[in-house]
């Protein structure tokens, strides 16, 4: 199920959006739960991070879409915000509230469904996956996003995670097979870097959760490409 909020003060557009969402629901074959609001302040007051996607008009009477989005971002960094506007020059600032997409009025169903479809796809890719690590006392289950990077030393694997460093035995090759399909990059000296936690790049070092990990010149390009592909798939 996908939970969508419509925040729109003009009833004509509100109805149109509802209609489009119903059509979209059939095409998608997945249930969509819709709630509607007529103004930004009403919506913000009621907000409890209960939505996956917010379709929001930019110009509204009491609280405009941009301010409402700012308020929402203080509470919820995950929700996808898509502006609906006839004033492109306002929506261009969407990056400030992590709203990288908007739909122009008058709304065409095609544009609407395409953009929404892409947003949902990226949202699905952000879903959590789990990974188990063998330790002496048994196995430990981790969310992929809790792992920052993994270092291999001989037959030891050293996991840098949210809860600290964990050592297990295993080889690079086994690990590579286990991690296939997840967003890890094999850097130098047997590092596996979780692309999700890459914070920056300086010369030949990648900054991963405050740690500088060496990426040689020959791997730099491949690393950046992997990063850009990964982000392209998950960014809102």
């Amino acid at each position, binding site marked *: 199920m996908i939970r969508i909020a419509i925040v729109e003060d003009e009833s004509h557009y509100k109805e149109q959006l509802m209609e489009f969402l119903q059509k979209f629901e059939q095409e998608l074959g997945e249930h969509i739960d819709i709630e509607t609001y007529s103004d930004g302040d009403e919506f913000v007051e009621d907000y409890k991070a209960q939505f996956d996607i917010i379709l929001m008009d930019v110009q509204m009477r009491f609280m405009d879409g941009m301010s409402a989005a700012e308020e929402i971002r203080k509470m919820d960094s995950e929700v996808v915000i898509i502006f609906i506007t006839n004033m492109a020059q306002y929506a261009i600032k969407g*990056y400030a509230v992590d709203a990288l997409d908007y739909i122009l009025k008058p709304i*065409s169903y095609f544009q609407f469904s395409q953009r929404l479809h892409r947003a949902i796809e990226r949202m699905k890719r952000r879903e959590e996956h789990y990974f188990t690590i063998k330790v002496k006392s048994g196995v430990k289950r981790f969310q992929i996003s809790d792992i920052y990077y993994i270092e291999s030393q001989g037959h030891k694997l050293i996991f840098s995670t949210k809860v600290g460093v964990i050592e297990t035995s295993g080889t690079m090759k086994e690990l590579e097979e286990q991690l296939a399909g997840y967003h890890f990059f094999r850097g130098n000296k047997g590092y596996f870097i979780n692309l999700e936690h890459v914070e920056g790049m300086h010369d030949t070092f990648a900054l991963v959760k405050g740690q500088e990990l060496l990426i040689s010149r020959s791997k730099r390009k491949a690393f950046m*490409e992997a990063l850009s592909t990964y982000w392209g798939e998950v960014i809102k």
Partner: protein
Amino acid sequence: MNTILPEIPRLYTALAEWLACIVYISQLKKQLKGWGLIAFSGGFLIVQSLFLMLTKDLPIYLWIPCMVVAIGIMFYFIYTSCNISAQEAGYFSVRAFVAAEFIASLEWQVHVFTWQGKQAPIWQETILLLTIYGIAFLLIWLLEKRHIPEEGKLNIRHRELWSTVFIGAAVFGISNLSFVSTQTPFSGQYAQEIMNIRTLVDLGGFAILYAYHIQLNELRIRHELKAMQNILQHQYSQYQQSKESIELINYKYHDLKNQIIALRAEEDADKRNAYLKKMEDEIKFFEAQNKTGNHVLDTLLASKNMFCIKNGITLTCVADGSLLNHMDVIDICTIFGNALDNAIEYEQRVEEAEKRLIHVSVFAQKGFIMIRFENYFEGELELEGDLPVTTKPDTLNHGYGLKSIRYAVEKYGGVVNVGQQDNWFELKVLIPM
């Protein structure tokens, strides 16, 4: 005057031809990979050796056709192993053949000189063979490596191919003339002399083809640079032009605003309002969106957007232009101008207007700047290296737009990649901050 002329064993020739093919194949873009390539090469070595050994005792007039077939087999080997055009495969097979002739001749001359026609122990022969072939082909490999285009093509067309074939044929003809007949003005008389002629002519031929190859490469690079310069100039002058026209529009916009104020005094309220609304809607498009925080980007987006409006394309954009403030004007023009031009060019061919969609986003993602161009795309994207296969007829000038984007982005230590997500073509630029 007839001295005994010990001919090069056919097996040696086959080995030289095989190694020469391997040298070139190893540097070209492969079609076959891993075990497939190894098995195929092995098969080729056997076929080539058998063919040359079985045709050893055929009469002299069949010798030329046999050599042509031998080159044909080499061509087939290179063409099948590599992902290149037939012209290019032809070009490289002639070069491989001349290189093989040269090395085989060189080795045999040393062989004859060392043992003076006496039977040498097999192991010594083999060591000499392996040493000379090994060193010689390694040298050729190193020489060639510097002049094989990394991505992209060498652009071998008929003209280049035929020049190479003629040089190859001339070299082959003259170097072997004395073996066919000693009764020509250009033939040698003594074994030593004949072998010298062959080795030296082959060396000359190899050098000519190598020089020709370098020249072709330089030409290609020059052509590429020139095309990129043109694109840079084009985008920049477009930017200058649109800057002027947008300033004019801005001026008009304020003018019109004043007129609207005057019109508000109109008596008939309904009429007045309807008229005003229409006017406002009309000029909305022309308001330069000086809002991204980067003037160059604003101008570019405004001018491209005008073109899009005229062509029924919906261009949407979310951009933090201030991220680009440390970049050169010309680089911003190159990246955005070319990426948008490519997208627009594609969308213009989309039949239904509601499907003509382009979305641009510029934002900071952790310690990086990300620029993403998405446009609606029908069909399957085919990539050739890291460039999309062209849909335009002009293949020689294909990809310079993307190449110049890459060139500009690499100045800032960034990367460019293209791909397809469902019905969307994506061009992503990632630059570390």
